[in-house]
């Protein structure tokens, strides 16, 4: 009997509660998805600070590794379940797909409000990655579709202690390709490893090869190649491929570099087993964690030609986008504006050792980070070129360079192979 009474009471209680007015929070919660494991504690700290300041709760959700995050974002976009703020990993075309599908808010009006107040905070090259110019080849309305939270450059680093041991001047890294190649014999004779990098993951090969393509033939010719106006069999491209052969022949490349993952390359450099590394500015944090006493310097990749300036990949390291369908988009924009202010940017740089996107923060960051930032003028990135190469061509290009390094193909053979795929893809497009 008591059970029936309890059941009736519970029914009445839940019915009454169910009829009560829904509690409405005046302050929304902003949900942010990201993949940056190393920055998550700093983000959580900033979220707490923002809640104290504004009463708005910010919920950072970490999804790692980056591959899993990419898949999650894609699935959420397909199901229209994106959070208020999110980042997009991948190439410009991924970004374009999200914009075309209407998932990303155009931040231009916010950036340009109050005489470009927010926009002027950023390094122009950092902003360029998220910006679409009038008449862009992607068919996107001109505008700025993301706020960079940090920047990066990919350069070479060298171990000063190993330089001294080898009899090189630790304050004078090689400036030309010949100087660099000449070091190879000495490195080999000393039983050390030369250049390490994550070339097993191939995109870093693509990055260095593009650096040399800009240096040897200039930006216009590189872009003309992407448009299909210059073939990969052009002598300048063969020179680019040949650089990898020369590096391998000279002994300046570490043994097994073609199957090396970047984490292993970072361990080798941090443990002072390699003289050079080709890595992005994120490495400062990684090396600090692996070997706090590592003495190293930053250098541009040695020039192969004096005809054109050296180029490095750089620009926005990570950016956040606002979900155009979000009910909290105004609050989301306000939070991003606050996150990219000088104080928060300096805090992020000091805690996470990433380069700040806010240009006024540079004076307050560690010296090794500033070295990476100083070469920002040389920075370029496929995302700002306006045209993207076919992914099958990029794949053939990168695998071709791997084949050159392992002595399987000559630069000329690789050039022919890449051009064949380029022509096939162009024919398909036509």
């Amino acid at each position, binding site marked *: 009997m008591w059970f029936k009474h309890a059941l009736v009471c519970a029914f009445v209680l839940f019915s009454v509660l169910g009829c009560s007015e829904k509690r409405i929070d005046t302050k929304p919660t902003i949900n942010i998805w990201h993949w940056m494991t190393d920055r998550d504690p700093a983000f959580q700290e900033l979220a707490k600070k923002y809640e104290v300041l504004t009463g708005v709760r910010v919920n950072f959700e970490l999804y790692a590794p980056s591959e899993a995050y990419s898949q999650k974002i894609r699935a959420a976009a397909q199901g229209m379940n994106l959070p208020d703020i999110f980042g997009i990993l991948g190439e410009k075309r991924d970004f374009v797909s999200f914009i075309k599908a209407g998932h990303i808010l155009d931040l231009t009006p916010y950036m340009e409000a109050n005489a470009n107040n927010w926009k002027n905070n950023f390094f122009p090259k950092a902003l360029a990655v998220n910006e679409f110019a009038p008449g862009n080849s992607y068919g996107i309305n001109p505008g700025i579709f993301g706020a960079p939270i940090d920047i990066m450059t990919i350069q070479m680093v060298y171990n000063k202690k190993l330089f001294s041991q080898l009899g090189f001047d630790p304050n004078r890294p090689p400036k030309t390709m010949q100087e660099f190649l000449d070091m190879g014999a000495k490195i080999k004779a000393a039983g050390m490893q030369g250049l390490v990098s994550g070339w097993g993951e191939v995109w870093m090969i693509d990055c260095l090869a593009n650096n040399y393509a800009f240096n040897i033939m200039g930006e216009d010719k590189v872009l003309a190649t992407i448009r299909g106006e210059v073939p990969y069999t052009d002598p300048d491209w063969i020179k680019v491929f040949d650089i990898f052969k020369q590096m391998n022949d000279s002994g300046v490349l570490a043994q*097994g570099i073609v199957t090396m993952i970047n984490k292993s390359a970072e361990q080798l450099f941090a443990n002072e087993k390699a003289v050079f590394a080709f890595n992005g500015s994120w490495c400062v944090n990684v090396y600090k964690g692996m070997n706090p006493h590592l003495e190293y310097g930053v250098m541009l990749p040695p020039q192969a030609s004096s005809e054109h300036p050296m180029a490095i990949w750089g620009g926005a390291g990570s950016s956040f986008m606002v979900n155009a369908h979000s009910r909290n988009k105004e609050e989301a924009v306000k939070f991003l504006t606050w996150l990219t202010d000088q104080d928060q940017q300096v805090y992020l740089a000091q805690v996470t050792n990433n380069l700040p996107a806010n240009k006024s923060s540079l004076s307050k960051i560690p010296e090794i980070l500033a070295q990476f930032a100083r070469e920002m003028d040389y920075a370029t990135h496929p995302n700002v070129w306006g045209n*993207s190469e076919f992914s099958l061509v990029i794949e053939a290009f990168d695998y071709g360079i791997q084949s050159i390094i392992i002595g399987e193909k000559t630069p000329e053979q690789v050039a022919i192979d890449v051009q064949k795929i380029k022509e096939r893809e162009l024919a398909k497009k036509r």
Partner: protein
Amino acid sequence: MKIKDTLENYVFVLPAVAIFSIFYIIPFIWVFRLGLFDWDGISFTKTFVGLQNFKEIFLQDRNWWQAMWNASYITLIALTLQNIFAFMLALACDREIRMKNFYRVIFFIPPVLSEIVVGMVWRFIINDIEGANIINRLLAGAGFPNLMHHWLSDPKTVLTTVAAVHCWKGFGWGFLIFLAGLQTIPHQLYESAQVDGANAWQLLKKITIPLMIPVMVLVAILTVLGSMQAFALILGLVGGEFAGHTSVPVLRILSSMRGSSPRFGYACAQGISFGMILVIISFIQYRFSNKGQ
């Protein structure tokens, strides 16, 4: 009454049919449908291309067939060396030997480890620069310094090295299934044969192997399915496709889904084609085994 019985039967199988349809048939049809489109995986617009993606896979995509060949090579080694080794160990552990339970546990450890972890551990064991170079040190210690080699960075040895590690990881499954199969063979058969004067080889040839054929077929099918779909191990071991030398179908599918211009529709077509190839291989294996029996 008969109609009622029939309906009742259908009601009983309905939950199973529903689950099978929702989780297998419908996704398969959906993925096949996506394979008929040129789609980047994000845009609202998909361009219908008919069977063009399938045509490209079968007639033009040389990388795909290179990947199929690499996977077949790994599978061939697994089918032979791995399964022979697993069978021999199962035979050994089926007898009354000391610490046989301990061996069973030890042999079953590799299959339960994550593929990516196994890849990274073996990378450390094998690699001479990044790792401990243990294999080469053992070879040198055993008096074979001329066999020391860059196993993972030489295109001539990398796939065989991958296959060897894959076998190490996979033989435990075969071992366990073979052992379970061996334990179902009645001991009286062996005893009667021994009374008739049969030696160990004759017992194996005339009793064990014929009675183990269904188990061998099962192990062979599982080996083919597992080996053809291996990819995480390769990522852990060599970081990627290594100029095509370690590319396998699943890595090709992943590669189509990402990059500067992802081809989700093409990846779906690759997935369907690969699935169909595996079904056909399994079917052929099954038919052959039936004929054999």
